[in-house]
């Protein structure tokens, strides 16, 4: 297992901001929806939008990338979630997780772990889970 993180300005993220998850044009595992559901459960005001949409109505953009490998079925090998300032397009925080084929992770679990790293686990406890 390997994990990578980037944290330039995490203090600017809180639940008062308006978040947009930018859906990938091709999203094999429907990861965008998983991120949306997980962020909503943490109390964020968040929408799932396409890249072309006008982002003026949002404060923070959430992008993601995923790599899958097929072995009878598709397994999630890598997932990254990156958070940007919508006004400046600066990368604020990012986190990535890689798994070898033999240590697989579900997309829900991987998403939860990365969002924990990005927003902190206290955000999750606020949602009452």
């Amino acid at each position, binding site marked *: 297992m390997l994990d990578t993180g980037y944290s330039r300005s995490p203090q600017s993220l809180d639940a008062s901001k308006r978040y947009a998850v930018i859906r990938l044009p091709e999203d094999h595992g429907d990861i965008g929806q998983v991120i949306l559901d997980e962020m909503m459960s943490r109390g964020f005001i968040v929408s799932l939008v396409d890249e072309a949409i006008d982002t003026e109505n949002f404060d923070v953009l959430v992008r993601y*990338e*995923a790599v899958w490998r097929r072995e009878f079925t598709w397994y999630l*090998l890598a997932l990254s979630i990156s958070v940007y300032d919508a006004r400046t397009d600066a*990368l604020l925080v990012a986190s*990535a997780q890689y*798994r070898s084929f033999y240590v697989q992770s579900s997309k829900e679990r991987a998403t939860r772990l990365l969002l924990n790293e990005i927003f902190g686990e206290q955000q999750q406890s606020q949602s009452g889970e």
Partner: protein
Amino acid sequence: MSKFADPAGLRPTTPRHIKTIRSVLLLTVLSAISSCGNYLYRQDVQIYGDLIKKKEVDCTSPYLLTRGCNDSELAVMNVDLHGLEFNAAFSDDGAAILVMHEMVSGGTTVLANMIFEGVRTELAAQEVSIQTVTAIQTRYYEGADVVVGYLLKVNGDGYAVLKPYLAES
């Protein structure tokens, strides 16, 4: 007469569950053989700029990289940019930047993109913008084409921007 015999009782038939097990085993073996060394990957990732093969990149081409470059490893300067660790090399004037990292199982392109976005953000904060981007591609041992780094041409001194994040040697 055996309950597995055919209706006419001329020859014994194979029980259905044995047939099923045989089919599953056959499919397993065929799948293992066909996928050996050639796995199927799906990379839902963005690749920035044009592609260049890693073997076509050295310390003199496409840019002359005089700082932190050797032809066998390419970028060798260690960088820690807000927790993101990678290697970099620069041209003498800092206008050409090579950022690279070691391959990681499954996540090589994902990591390269994170490095690109981190460097882009740091350059922009110092009002240095990227003029051209080239993705350095190689083939992962399992058969997938992956991006291991990016070559950037910028309109300022990228070395000066990233210098505070270089690990002391």
